């Protein structure tokens, strides 16, 4: 009876979004009369920060500060249709729709400013500080605040834009069966170190080192936050969480937090995160979807580390002490009880 050590590695490709019948999202952007910008979505922020990211994307595209953008989400009565927040698709799909809507709104805004300044709209640019100015002649400028007021009260223009992003459905090729289920893939690799107590079957993940390739990190701190939490959840799925411990038998399923196990603050693996940024060609400012992907590579990595430690493959999740002990008994040639 001993503590056995193991190390496991796993690498994954992870699609951004899904492709059942096409994967669309829409966004609408309009200015208030005083030059703030409203992004109207039916997409929902689950706490991962969708609103913040959409505000950043809209602000960057129009050329205003993030504080000038208001994001209205999660109302399917008032917002244009979105497939939803799932499949790691939010930043990529909705972000692309927001860029299109914001570009259209920006174009109207520049046309109004052009009329006010008596110049051509193509000669105008935003200064990032709330003004629109003639390229190369910044003294000839008008504020976005005044532009929005004039659009509404003087020129009768609606500074607004419509955005639509659709990844069309891909059908399998009849000859080969090949298809393109996603246009954009994030990647990850995890190295996990474990200790397995071969007497109790208990597994301790001592260290987990993750490298994530997520396109461009539009908000690096929020990306880090999501990846650290995701890494924890990956370990939780590997070793603890299930509502169906003896599936398909329904007995002994957890019904509350007393029975549904998750690692607490005292059970944390030493966690390391490295982010690689390789901007995606079709991503909003290069972003991919890190959402679901961040909780996946830990699972095969820890399973491989357990194999390295005790020499048996466990192919059912979660890898509980019971499953470890049964596997060890089977390995020793004892009849499983």
């Amino acid at each position, binding site marked *: 009876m001993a503590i056995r050590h193991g190390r496991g590695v796993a690498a994954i490709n992870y699609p951004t979004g899904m492709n059942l019948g096409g994967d669309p999202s829409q966004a609408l952007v309009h200015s208030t009369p005083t030059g703030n910008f409203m992004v109207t979505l039916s997409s929902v922020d*689950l*706490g*991962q*920060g969708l609103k913040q990211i959409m505000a950043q994307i809209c602000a960057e595209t129009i050329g205003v500060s993030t504080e000038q953008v208001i994001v209205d989400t999660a109302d399917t009565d008032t917002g244009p249709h979105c497939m939803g927040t799932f499949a790691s698709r939010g930043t990529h799909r909705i972000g692309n729709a927001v860029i299109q809507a914001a570009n259209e709104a920006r174009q109207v805004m520049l046309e109004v400013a052009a009329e006010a300044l008596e110049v051509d709209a193509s000669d105008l640019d935003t200064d990032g500080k709330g003004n629109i100015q003639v390229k190369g002649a910044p003294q000839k400028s008008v504020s976005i605040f005044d532009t929005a007021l004039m659009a509404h009260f003087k020129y009768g223009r609606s500074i607004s834009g419509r955005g639509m992003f659709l990844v069309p459905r891909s059908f399998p090729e009849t000859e080969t069966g090949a298809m393109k289920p996603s246009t954009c893939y994030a990647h990850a690799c995890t190295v996990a170190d474990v200790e397995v107590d071969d007497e109790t079957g208990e597994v301790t993940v001592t260290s987990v080192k993750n490298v994530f390739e997520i396109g461009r990190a539009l908000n690096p*701190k*929020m990306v*880090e*936050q*999501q990846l*650290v*939490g*995701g*890494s*924890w*959840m990956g370990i939780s799925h590997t070793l603890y969480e299930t509502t169906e411990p003896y599936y398909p038998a329904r007995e002994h399923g957890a019904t*509350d*937090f*007393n029975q549904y196990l*998750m690692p*607490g*603050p*005292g059970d*944390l693996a030493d*966690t390391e995160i490295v982010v690689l940024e390789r901007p995606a060609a079709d991503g909003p400012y290069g972003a991919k979807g890190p959402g679901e992907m961040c909780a996946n590579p830990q699972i095969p990595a820890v399973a491989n580390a357990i194999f390295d430690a005790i020499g048996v493959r466990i192919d059912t999740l979660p890898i509980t002490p019971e499953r470890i002990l049964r596997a060890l008994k089977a390995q020793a040639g004892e009849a499983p009880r």
Partner: protein
Amino acid sequence: MPKVPIQLVLNGEERAEFVDSGATLLKVIRDKLGDTSPKGGCHQGTCGACSVEIDGELKLSCLVLAETCGGADVSTVSSLSSDGVLHPLQRAFMENFAAQCGFCTPGMIMAAKSLLDRIPDPTRDDVIEAISGNICRCTGYEPIIQAILTAARANSLTAA
């Protein structure tokens, strides 16, 4: 259902209310007294999201009957900031990105406050012990642990 009159102090303010006999303090704080900062996660004392202080002691408000709180001094996370000035713990949670969905945050901060009131200079193990009754599903706990340790350090600098 018979109504029971209770009087208590909530976040420094005298409050009086008729409550359902058997109603939990959590339900009364949220539905009757209008402070929705304590959250109802499990309603059985296993998630910690409803943590409040009653007479200076950390309690799970989903397990306390409101009618037992007559004359008590109850504090929720709403009591920690005043006039927009955040408590050092709230600031530390923000600066350490220790919240994502935010549902556990009020309970986490109350658990952390209770810890720092008892032990102003806690070790990492003290922090882990203090929040071990609070479930977080988003952060992986590490940013929360770091936030509490940061707030403790900030406090000790102010005190010195």
